[in-house]
């Protein structure tokens, strides 16, 4: 499969005006690719995920085009998107622990959900049970109410449920944020296994924790203030990033074995801009040590090396 996003613009409607949360995203994801999507809070990563699967008010579609497996995704049309949801594109949401109806047995809810999508529980059931085993849930879980499961169990159940019909693209939104480190590793590895067993073709893992991405992702895309900053293989991002923001982000990560006496942690001075009336041009301009006058124009997200995209005037691409 492949995901092709072109110039996607989605704003948030507020009483004070439109917040330009996602302003012109263009990128591709190849078949079988696990892409990590990282950035500070408010950079637009969750907006991007929600735009692809559930674009409801206060989100407002402004422009752009999304193609999945060659077919256009009608993301602005809530009804038409129903044909694609769950089967082609799916999500494990940030609120996974509350995502199950508290007054319905899990098995019954699954059956009703499948039936409403035109799938029969008895066809899917054997596979469902196999996957429960895979993630370490007992078969009884189908006979229980969500309140009888722990948070981690509920999350794994949602992971199984969201991928039950083998979607082409799965988005995992901050699913490790509320977990301890060892569970984080287990969950992240579970995601990779889903891809390896072809339960899903490609994945977008959204997190602000780059270290997780380094473990399990193939590529990492960095976002800043509603714009795409850089996308490359994980090794490139971690070892040789080229966008000034990525560089500062990586260097601000603590390294194992390094003590404060040797090297101090470097933060990035300043704060991200508010997006109601964002600054002209590159939104990192105010905090960027390399900024110059061309930065008043929005830099295009171009390929500087094979598979390596950067949006920075200091890094001219092959086509610059």
């Amino acid at each position: 499969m492949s995901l092709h996003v072109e110039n996607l613009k989605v704003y948030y409607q507020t009483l004070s005006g439109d917040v330009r949360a996602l302003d012109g995203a263009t990128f591709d994801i190849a078949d079988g690719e696990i892409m990590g999507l990282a950035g500070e809070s408010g950079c637009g990563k969750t907006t991007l995920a929600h735009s692809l699967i559930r674009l409801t008010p206060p989100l407002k579609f402004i422009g752009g085009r999304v193609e999945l497996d060659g077919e256009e995704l009608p993301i602005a049309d809530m009804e038409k998107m129903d044909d694609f949801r769950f089967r082609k594109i799916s999500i494990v949401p940030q609120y996974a622990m509350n995502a199950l109806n508290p007054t319905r047995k899990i098995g019954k809810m699954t059956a009703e959900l499948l039936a409403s999508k035109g799938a029969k529980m008895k066809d899917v059931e054997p596979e469902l049970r196999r996957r429960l085993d895979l993630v370490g849930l007992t078969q009884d879980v189908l006979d229980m109410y969500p309140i009888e499961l722990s948070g981690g169990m509920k999350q794994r159940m949602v992971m199984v449920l969201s991928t039950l019909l083998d979607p082409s693209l799965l988005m995992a939104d901050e699913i490790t944020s509320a977990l301890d480190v060892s569970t984080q590793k287990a969950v992240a590895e579970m995601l990779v296994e889903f891809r390896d067993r072809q339960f899903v073709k490609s994945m977008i893992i959204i997190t602000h924790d780059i270290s997780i991405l380094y473990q399990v992702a193939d590529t990492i895309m960095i976002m800043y203030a509603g714009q795409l900053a850089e996308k490359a293989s994980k090794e490139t991002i971690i070892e040789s990033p080229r966008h000034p923001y990525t560089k500062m982000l990586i260097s601000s990560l603590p390294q194992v074995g390094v003590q404060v006496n040797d090297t101090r942690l470097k933060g990035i001075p300043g704060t991200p801009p508010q997006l109601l009336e964002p600054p002209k041009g590159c939104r990192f301009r105010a905090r960027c040590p390399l900024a110059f006058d061309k930065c008043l124009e929005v830099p295009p997200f171009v390929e500087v090396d094979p598979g390596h995209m950067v949006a920075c005037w200091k890094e001219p691409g092959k086509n610059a």
Partner: protein
Amino acid sequence: MRRYFGRKVLIYLLTFFIAVTIDWLIPRFMPGDPVLSMLGRVGTAHPDTVNAMREYFTRVFGLDVPFWQQYLNFWASLLRGDLGVSVYRFPQSVVDVIMNAVPYDIALLVPSILLSWIAGNKFGAYAARRKWLDNTVLPLGYTLTATPYMWLAILLAWGLGIKLDLFPIAGAYAFDMAPHWSWRFISSVLHHWFLPFASLFLVNLGGWAIGMRNVIIYELEADYSHYLEALGAPQKLVRKYAYRNALLPQITGLALQLGVIVAGALVTEVVFSYPGIGFQLLAAIQNQDYFLIQGCFLFIISGVLLANFIIDIAYVIVDPRTRRGMTGETA
């Protein structure tokens, strides 16, 4: 679950105990001599009647016996089913008067409560679907629920009863009939029953519609609803789940509203001279028939407690979480 019911039953027993105690205490702390005032109000001068009543009252009030013994005697007769003798309907016993009145209350309360609850929930759920429906149901609902029960009863009685002459406005059946099994009688009963029933139904309807509308909007914005939508489940399924979950607080609400609904039934009966307990209670008050007042009060309280208990059972049946022993005091 045993703990859940255990607590509830404890509260109800405690409440009943307190209610009976209040019922017993009040005449004894009100100013004046109850026996004298009772005698005065009986209004008869015939010496035999007066003596019999004075003896009876003194005995019944047990005023010649220490306080605590009076209290126990009260409980004793209560448990025997003896609520005393009605003064204004002498020599009919209080229990008799009440038992004759109860069927009318049940006939009014049960259908109006059930139907208004069911219909109100449906309307409230529909209102959440479309903006224009919402803009109609809400103001209508608020108006109905803000309407005092007796005023709506008066309006219906005057409008449909007198001006349009569609329904009778007094009594449970035509005055020239005695209860018997025939179509004429049954239709007369229904004819007399309709307006008071409609009055109760309408006022209650408003409250439920508004309640359901608010709860269901909350449920439709819950995480589980968003998840289903993200997975492309049709609105029908999302609404079905939201509706079922919204019914739970509505059941609890029913228990909380019982006192108000019963009060509404009382005044409605007064307007229509409908011979239920409310009507009897008013007559008792006007005639200072203390035994009847006490009896009605106890009966109403017991009825409400029983209804609460039934609703608690219904809640446990409908909410699967309580059966799994998880939730305790969310009801």
